[in-house]
């Protein structure tokens, strides 16, 4: 599978974090609306039978990548001062969520780069929205007030140039799918992804989709890192460093209007998690999760791992 990088420019803030499964869900609706049921069913059929047309990463701000969950071997502190220094450094690194490509590649190649502090690449702002009473024109009697957290990209590169885009990494089963997928993303951008699409949240334009060779330099990998949240399948590697979270998913578009628009809670592994492999690294791990929505048994949850080869020093 060849890897591409898709750059998106958001047209305003977004509310739902742009994770691989959310992006996949949006794409499925786009494909269904644009090409009909047969087209989406044939695509999902291939995803079900382990021949995905594409594998998606989460979306990351600018050129940044998630901080790998890795244990770094360091010399044992000899003095109390060294001990303090290491503790302080550990605390500082813990706060950093994303790395530059250089830091990321150096780390997954087995070296320990100096990781700079940087501002949070995503700004969040809370906005108040109200539903006014149509007759009185105020929020009093019958009106409603609600708060909404919106995210904005606020990322600059080392030359202080603004990186006002998101990057999604994509592996394609065959290069011929590139133009088709690009079209689907363009359509999806018109509608937007996630919550409050109808007020413009999560809408974007496509800047470019270029081949990406960033992850191809790692020699003799013995582990993989996932750039997407995922659910391991039977037989996937189990030894590694990972974090889990519970996803409370919701159905989209017209399914969101049904009497029960929720998916079952799903335990997922976070992007940035690392697992040891025996032998080579496969293009993807994880699985498509079936029976996730009680009201719509045909719904399939995307939970594949976008794998990046990793060279871990030390154990294993």
């Amino acid at each position, binding site marked *: 599978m060849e890897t591409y990088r898709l750059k998106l420019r958001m047209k305003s803030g977004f509310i739902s974090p742009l994770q691989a499964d959310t992006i996949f869900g949006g794409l499925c609706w786009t494909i269904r609306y644009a090409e009909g049921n047969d087209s989406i069913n044939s695509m999902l059929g291939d995803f079900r039978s382990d021949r995905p047309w594409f594998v998606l990463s989460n979306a990351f701000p600018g050129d940044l990548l998630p901080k790998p969950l890795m244990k770094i071997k360091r010399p044992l502190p000899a003095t109390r001062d060294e001990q303090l220094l290491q503790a302080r450094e550990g605390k500082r690194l813990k706060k950093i969520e994303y790395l530059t490509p250089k830091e990321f590649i150096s780390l997954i190649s087995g070296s320990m780069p100096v990781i700079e502090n940087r501002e949070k690449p995503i700004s969040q702002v809370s906005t108040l929205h109200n539903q006014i009473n149509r007759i009185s024109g105020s929020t009093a009697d019958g009106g409603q007030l609600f708060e909404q957290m919106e995210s904005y990209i606020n990322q600059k590169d080392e030359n202080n140039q603004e990186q006002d885009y998101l990057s999604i990494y994509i592996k394609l089963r065959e290069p011929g799918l590139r133009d088709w997928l690009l079209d689907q993303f363009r359509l999806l951008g018109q*509608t937007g992804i996630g919550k409050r699409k109808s007020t413009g949240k999560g809408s974007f334009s496509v800047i470019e989709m270029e081949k990406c060779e960033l992850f191809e330099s790692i020699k003799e990998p013995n582990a993989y890192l996932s750039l997407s949240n995922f659910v391991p399948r039977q037989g996937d590697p189990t030894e590694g460093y990972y974090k889990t979270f519970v996803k409370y998913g919701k159905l989209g578009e017209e399914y969101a209007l049904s009497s029960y628009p929720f998916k079952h809670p799903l335990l997922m592994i976070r992007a940035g998690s690392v697992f040891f492999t025996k032998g080579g690294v496969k293009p993807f791990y994880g699985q498509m999760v079936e029976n996730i929505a009680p009201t719509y048994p045909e719904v399939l949850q995307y939970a594949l791992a976008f794998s990046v080869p990793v060279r871990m020093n030390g154990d294993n």
Partner: protein
Amino acid sequence: MKLERHAIIKGVIFCETGLRIGGSNDDIEIGGNDNPIIRNPVTDLPYIPGSSLKGRMRSLLELKHSAITQQTGKPCDCGQCNICKIFGTHGTHKARESVLGPTRIIVRDAFLTSESVKELKAANQEKGIYYTEVKHENLVDRKTGKAEHPRPNERVPAGSKFDFEIVLRIFENDNENAALNLIREGLSLVQKEYLGGSGSRGYGKVRFINTTIDGVPFVLEEGK
């Protein structure tokens, strides 16, 4: 359902009077005197949220056409009319059982035109105001006739322009003309009324200019 196309309506929102879209609600005093308007957190520039324009269009259309709204003052949830269909169903039981399909309209956030950014920047340097003006509102004591409690209100000055975009998703079997007429009517109603807060005191009189649909002129009202 099959999507036929996206119809894209674009234009400029011209503020004939000062416009105030609060970062906090007008009816709620947050931090007393502090009455900020909504701004993009990264650029700090004021903008018009898509939700404000969409909500205003919807509520004015409902007041005019929906019997439910005329009685209750609440959003229409009949799940059958064109407003419910195009603007999206309000999450009630009745509406959920409807077969309206997905929301058809997408009203995006409207950002200051580059020309307006330049003008306001110049004003900023001359008068020291940050892309906005502050208008002091007084409460006049009805007995003494004296002004009391001057309250600063931040607004985007008259003459400011914002680029707006509305996307209409047209599915197979949708009545495109009916949908476009509803949007046209919604925009005209906003033009006749106001956008944002303090409309009864003259704020938020806007005009939609240079409106186009898929690049062709989109006329809001006959003879204009």
